[in-house]
């Protein structure tokens, strides 16, 4: 029996100890009418050898195309040590560290993570992770409404330069509590928040403004001016950032005169594989004054009976297992193992290394845009500074061009036509430090051929 160690003798003797005639008798409190006689729809069990072969076949079907898709999930080099240690049983198969004395490893690691991510984002405190970037934006909006001392408004401004899926997750998650998310247009020339459209909200009672930097198009927003404007209007500022970019970009804690109030983002770029979308982790940091409004677990350092330093979960009175219906969030299980990987990644890559990853990604992406815009019928959509992504406009339908590229083993980018139909045929492309000059040249050549083929069709 897979993973069940009992011998027949064990079963006999255990039943005798219990005083039950059979295992079946242990279910005698369940109404007989509800009992089932088997699971016919489940296939026969497989040995480990057989499942290994099956999974290898399935994996082969997925292939290994050359991908230039970003749009919220980014391919980066992951040091071998990251997952070698993360998957050690002592991390992998431990529970949430409620028994502090038997969980000092996980607890200290979370404390070190909190230190690193707080410093990276320029904020004072961090929680121990949320589900992903999208759910982190939703939780940040709920937190802003809760933490706002002067306004009871349920309105949150989420400009259209914020990842469209984050906006969707925020609406499905926080809409049930009455939060209203209002969009703000972007400028066609530089793909950044339209300050005139934003000015229309001046003087209104709104809880928070969400600012994504770099924004969904890869463009850099004028975060100082936006932050100061929002604060003048009495709004809190929720920063949504790419952690890799923060090696080079001003951290949210330093935006404008007083800094953003809550900072969230997708932690995946920090050592987490793309893996079809998860598991990733959301990070959240804030100012100390808001720590009691923050959802999720938090680790604090304290001392034991002998005065020795140790770590424990703290401020648990915010959480569901204590506060039940009045908790800051219903979150319980978070993404601990991914936060573990990210902590090891940040340690191995270091401050210098992260700057180099960010710089190399910017460089590669700049070279990619240069190469692709040499192709006839392809141009950059926006002016202005970018990080490692860019929007390209094509004079032929993006979907047809992408299909053509796919036959060449290339995933050419993310088609923006569903989320931003006003752009026409537009592609969001990304290159990071993992791409070589040869990869970029291969894409440029293939794109030329693909556009031509679509034009001829």
């Amino acid at each position, binding site marked *: 029996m*897979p993973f069940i160690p009992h011998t027949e003798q064990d079963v006999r003797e255990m039943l005798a100890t219990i005083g039950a005639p059979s295992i079946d008798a242990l279910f005698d409190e369940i109404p007989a009418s509800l009992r089932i006689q088997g699971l016919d729809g489940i296939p026969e069990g497989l040995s480990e050898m057989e499942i290994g072969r099956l999974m290898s076949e399935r994996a082969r079907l997925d292939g290994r195309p050359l991908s230039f898709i970003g749009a919220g999930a980014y391919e980066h080099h992951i040091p071998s040590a990251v997952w070698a240690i993360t998957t050690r049983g002592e991390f992998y198969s431990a529970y949430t560290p409620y028994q502090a004395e038997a969980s000092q490893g996980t607890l200290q690691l979370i404390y070190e993570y909190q230190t690193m991510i707080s410093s990276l984002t320029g904020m004072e405190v961090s929680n121990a992770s949320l589900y992903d970037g999208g759910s982190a934006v939703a939780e940040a909006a709920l937190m802003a409404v809760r933490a706002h001392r002067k306004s009871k408004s349920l309105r949150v401004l989420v400009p259209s330069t914020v990842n469209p899926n984050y906006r969707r997750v925020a609406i499905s998650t926080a809409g049930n509590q009455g939060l209203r998310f209002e969009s703000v247009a972007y400028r066609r020339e530089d793909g950044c928040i339209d300050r005139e459209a934003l000015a229309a909200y001046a003087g209104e009672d709104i809880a928070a403004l969400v600012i994504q930097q770099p924004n969904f198009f890869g463009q850099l927003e004028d975060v100082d001016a936006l932050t100061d404007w929002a604060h003048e209007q009495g709004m809190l500022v929720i920063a949504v950032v790419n952690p890799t970019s923060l090696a080079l970009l001003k951290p949210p804690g330093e935006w404008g005169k007083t800094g953003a109030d809550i900072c969230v983002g997708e932690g995946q770029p920090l050592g987490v594989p793309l893996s079809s979308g998860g598991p990733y982790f959301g990070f959240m940091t804030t100012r100390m004054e808001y720590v009691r409004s923050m959802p999720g677990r938090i680790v*604090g350092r304290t001392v034991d009976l002998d005065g020795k330093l140790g770590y424990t979960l703290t401020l648990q009175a915010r959480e569901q297992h204590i506060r039940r219906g009045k908790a800051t969030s219903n979150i319980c299980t978070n993404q601990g193992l991914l936060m573990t990987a990210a902590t090891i990644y940040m340690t191995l890559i270091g401050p210098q290394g992260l700057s180099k990853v960010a710089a190399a990604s910017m460089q590669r992406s700049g070279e990619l845009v240069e190469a692709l815009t040499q192709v006839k019928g392809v141009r950059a959509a926006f002016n202005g500074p970018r990080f490692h992504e860019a929007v390209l406009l094509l004079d032929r339908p993006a979907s047809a061009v992408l299909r053509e590229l796919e036959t060449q083993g290339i995933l050419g980018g993310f088609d923006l036509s569903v989320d931003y139909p006003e752009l026409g045929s537009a592609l969001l492309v990304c290159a990071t430090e993992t791409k070589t000059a040869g990869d970029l040249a291969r894409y440029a050549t293939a794109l030329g051929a693909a556009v031509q083929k679509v034009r001829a069709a």
Partner: protein
Amino acid sequence: MNQILEKSIFEYSRSGRSAQVQQPPGADVASAVEKIPAALRRSKAPMLPEVSELDAVRHFTRLSQLNFSIDTNFYPLGSCTMKYNPKACNQYAMLPEFLARHPLAPDSQGQGFLSCMFELQEMLKEVTGMKAVSLNPMAGAHGEFAGVAMIRAYHRARGDLARNEIIVPEAAHGTNPATATMCGCIVKEIPVDAQGDVDLDALAKAVGPNTAGIMLTNPSTLGVFERKIEQVAKLVHGAGGLLYYDGANLNAILGKVRPGDMGFDVIHMNLHKTFSTPHGGGGPGAGAVGVSARLEPFLPVPIVGREGDQYRWLSEVDRPQSIGRLSAFMGNAGVLLRAYIYMRMLGREGMSRVGEYATLNANYVMARLRQAGFDLAYPERRASHEFIVTMKRQAKELNVTAMDIAKRLLDYGFHAPTTYFPLLVPECLLIEPTETESRETLDAFVVAMATILGEAEADANTLKTAPHTMPVRRLDDVRAAKQLDLTWKPVNSAA
């Protein structure tokens, strides 16, 4: 257990040291920075450690050794189903093609992954008796959220707008009332009777035209099967409400009875419990949801569909009534792959035996602890996959609490059971052995418990000051909350 505490990673840090082989060659930081407008640049480097690769590997390996885990210790944490996490599930979910696949890659570049997800949906439908499944929610509480949001959407779609009350038994997990609140509902708690079943009279009084639904765990958090489930279903459905099944305890009944057959309209499954994906020191989980036919249109997207021999994501376009997206992409894909692999290895017969042997182990430990002099919270009842010991008598007679027992167990190499949950049983220990533990391990645990009881009778102080062999002794939680120390700071820093 390693007695030596590990210093902070920041104390290893030396300016200028790095794991150079991990850095991209030829990166030109200065010229990248030049392309960023001066006002948008970072001025001060983040405080990340500057260490060698060996420093990092040794530090985090040592940290890992300070943990209890399933791989190293029996971990009978009630309601958490700490069963063995097969290594194959991890290895084959981490094949390079699976790891490299971008979430926005076209369906044509993911037929292998999508076929696994489709089959996982089908298998989960079969073992729960539900009509349709969505794999999106990323944890149990996230699945609860999806479930209650669907209940609300269902009532709204029928124009039944007054239904905003969620009924929750007082023994429920804290996530249940917290979820109801997150969905904008009002929570109504109802009592359970002396035998641990829902108080039907109280339920009859609680239901009405405002009832959106009831959230139930079955077997309940009291470690017993809810025997009146059919009457509960009848009462709630009769009042126009729906039934939500919290899958925290699904391991108890896997292969024996199905939530769909009990009358539940929506359920979540904790794949990190019943289907053996790792707990990871706090996640990631996966909280797939299953629904009856009437809730199918509201399932969160995306869902994997099959057309001929091709698999594709179904989105908002295919499911216009969906409650929407709960994650930026499609939930914890890699966790779902692990659950798929586990289910395929178990197969039809293996899956039926999970509930049987989990129940056998729980009833065995319960019987032996009773013989050893422990009091059971529900001595007249069968254990499900878990059961409750109450230390109420010992607390009074010997001045030892459930917490003291829990801490002393650590010294014997056993992780503590769940303590002080459910809240309505005083001084309780909720014990869940799981089916993957051998009789020898269970016997050793019983011996440790009996020994500890003897110690309590001889000198309670041994327990009150436990643990004695862990890296740290009991920690000052009050100080942790009052003098908040949440990030490491250099010794010389003013902060």
